[in-house]
């Protein structure tokens, strides 16, 4: 699963998820993409599950790009522990996703129906609402 190789600090505060994505909101590599419609944390496990669903659905046709990276450590307190005694241990890693963020792209000559099916299957693995967009309609209207 994806995670940073080295980090400056072991644990982070939760932060707030305000506004829309400013960067990473355009299709840059492939022809079809999965775009987030709501803010949230997407865990490394979800990203991996989505990637597997896509590569399986595409059966070695085309290419998949993962445009998000889980670089936020999410901690959890041990079960039945009392309050205090410091912050909990890192449970998993997550990517911070804001509305508009392109999470996955597919392309490299893959037929449209296959690409859309792969992205739809990937969307079921994620904890944020999303939609499939195509390169042709990404600009203009």
């Amino acid at each position, binding site marked *: 699963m994806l995670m940073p190789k*080295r980090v400056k600090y072991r644990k982070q505060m939760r932060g707030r998820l305000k506004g829309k994505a400013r960067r990473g909101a355009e299709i840059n590599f492939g022809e079809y993409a999965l775009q987030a419609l709501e803010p949230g944390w997407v865990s490394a496990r979800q990203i991996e599950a989505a990637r597997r669903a896509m590569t399986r659905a595409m059966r070695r046709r085309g290419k998949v790009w993962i445009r998000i990276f889980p670089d936020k450590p999410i901690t959890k307190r041990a079960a039945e522990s009392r309050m205090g005694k410091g912050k909990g241990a890192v449970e998993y890693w997550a990517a911070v996703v804001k509305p*508009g963020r392109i999470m996955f792209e597919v392309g490299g000559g893959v037929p449209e129906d296959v690409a859309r099916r792969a992205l739809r299957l990937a969307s079921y693995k994620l904890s944020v609402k999303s939609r499939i967009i195509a390169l042709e*309609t990404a600009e203009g*209207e």
Partner: protein
Amino acid sequence: MSDQYVLEANRREVTGKKVKRLRREGKLPGILYGHKVEPTPVVVDYRTAAKVLRDVGTSTLLTLKLDGKEYPVLVREQQVDVLSRQLLHVDFQALAMDETVRTQVDVVVLDENVPAVKNYSAILTVVLDSVEIECLPKDLPENITVDASVLQEIGDTITVADLNVPAGVTVLEDPESVVVVATAPESAAEEEAEAEAEEGVEPEVIEKGKGEEEAEE
């Protein structure tokens, strides 16, 4: 000058956050600038602009009518809302027809009958989907087409030097930059090996904490 794409614009007095009102009224704010042209905030009709801008690229010559004058322009930037995909703002660069201009032009890959794809199930990866060019406005190409049928095997590439560029156009990219490459498809065995290897890795956090920072000081 382009007769194919013509946009009528008016001068715009409203600037800043107040342009929201213009957008609500079905207008699209923009700006016109260029060599020997004073930067002028303009406004165009949204529906006509959206129709025209859908078809034009960054190297398509447009005619912008403003105050009875006609300006040959390029669309330099389009700001689009990431969720609604509505146009928010557009930049027009006025051109002098006797001066060269630098712009990005799209690379269109003709991917039919590619031997590498047919014989080896290669995947065509487009590394450069646009290239920077310099030319006179009259020579501006709509796009540059690349015939990928010369890719015989996996690993074969088409570089910038191989591009079929019209006369009068200079490509400003490194001639050795790869435009298209035929890459091998990921094999099923590789995928599984990757997945297994990933399972075994423990979350390792190399902390660059106080100790190191103090040592650096």
